């Protein structure tokens, strides 16, 4: 087993512990045990993969995601308070360009939080998406999200 992913995860869980105990230092006994167990469980459940995640990509993605999810919330709030909510829902099918696995999981999760889209089904590469307003250019937005995820994970579409 390679050492780098083990170290990285141990460090991440140690950071989580530090945050939870708010920096208290009297707690390292239970802390070390739980961090060790968590690292072990994480390696069992999620064996290290050979991805090349670009950290700049993650930062750019996070910024874009924050802005978009805020837009989504504003859109829903505006609709909710309209006298007659102006909804034009429909279900569209999109063929995914991303590879199966983590990238697909991520796009489904992200689409559920982005403005106006909610995945209802994935069949192979076909994604069925419930759209709140079918008059908006949803397919283009899904494609844009796909491209960003591909860039962040360093996978080819």
């Amino acid at each position, binding site marked *: 087993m390679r050492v780098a992913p083990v170290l990285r995860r141990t460090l991440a869980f140690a950071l*989580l512990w*530090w*945050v*939870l*105990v*708010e*920096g208290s230092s009297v707690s390292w006994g239970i802390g070390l045990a739980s961090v060790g167990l968590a690292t072990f469980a994480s390696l069992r459940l999620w064996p290290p993969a050979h991805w090349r995640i670009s950290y700049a990509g993650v930062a750019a993605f996070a910024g874009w995601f924050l802005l978009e*999810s*805020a837009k*989504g*919330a*504003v*859109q*829903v*709030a505006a*609709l*909710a*308070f309209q006298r007659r*909510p102006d*909804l*034009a*829902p*429909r*279900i569209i099918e999109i063929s995914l360009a991303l590879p199966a696995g983590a990238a697909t999981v991520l796009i*489904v*999760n*992200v689409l*559920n*939080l982005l*403005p*106006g889209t*909610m*995945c*209802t*089904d994935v069949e192979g590469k076909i994604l*069925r998406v*419930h759209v*709140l307003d*079918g008059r908006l250019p949803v397919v283009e937005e899904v494609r844009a999200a796909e491209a960003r995820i591909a860039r962040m994970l360093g996978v080819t579409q």
Partner: protein
Amino acid sequence: MPDSAREFFSAVFLVIGAFFYLAGTVGLLRFPDVYTRLHALTKADNLGLGFLVLGLAVQAESLAAALKLLLIWPLTLAASATVGYLIARRARALGISPWLRPEDR
């Protein structure tokens, strides 16, 4: 940051957060079917929660305490995106067809 400014920003964030929760709940009650209601809950409540934890984190006594509060947000996001998908998929599997505008039917 001086305490008064902290309290001011905290209050502003909490009010914004509460507003989005209200919007999500109003949407839940007013939208026509399970799919559109899921939109209301996942989107509005997530931003609402984001502002709530931000409002509380501003008041936190230490960096770690603030981070602990902010950590709640991504965890809830992941859970609600997954649960939203599971409910939508279950609804599809049960054959619940989505609500359409009269002119789209």
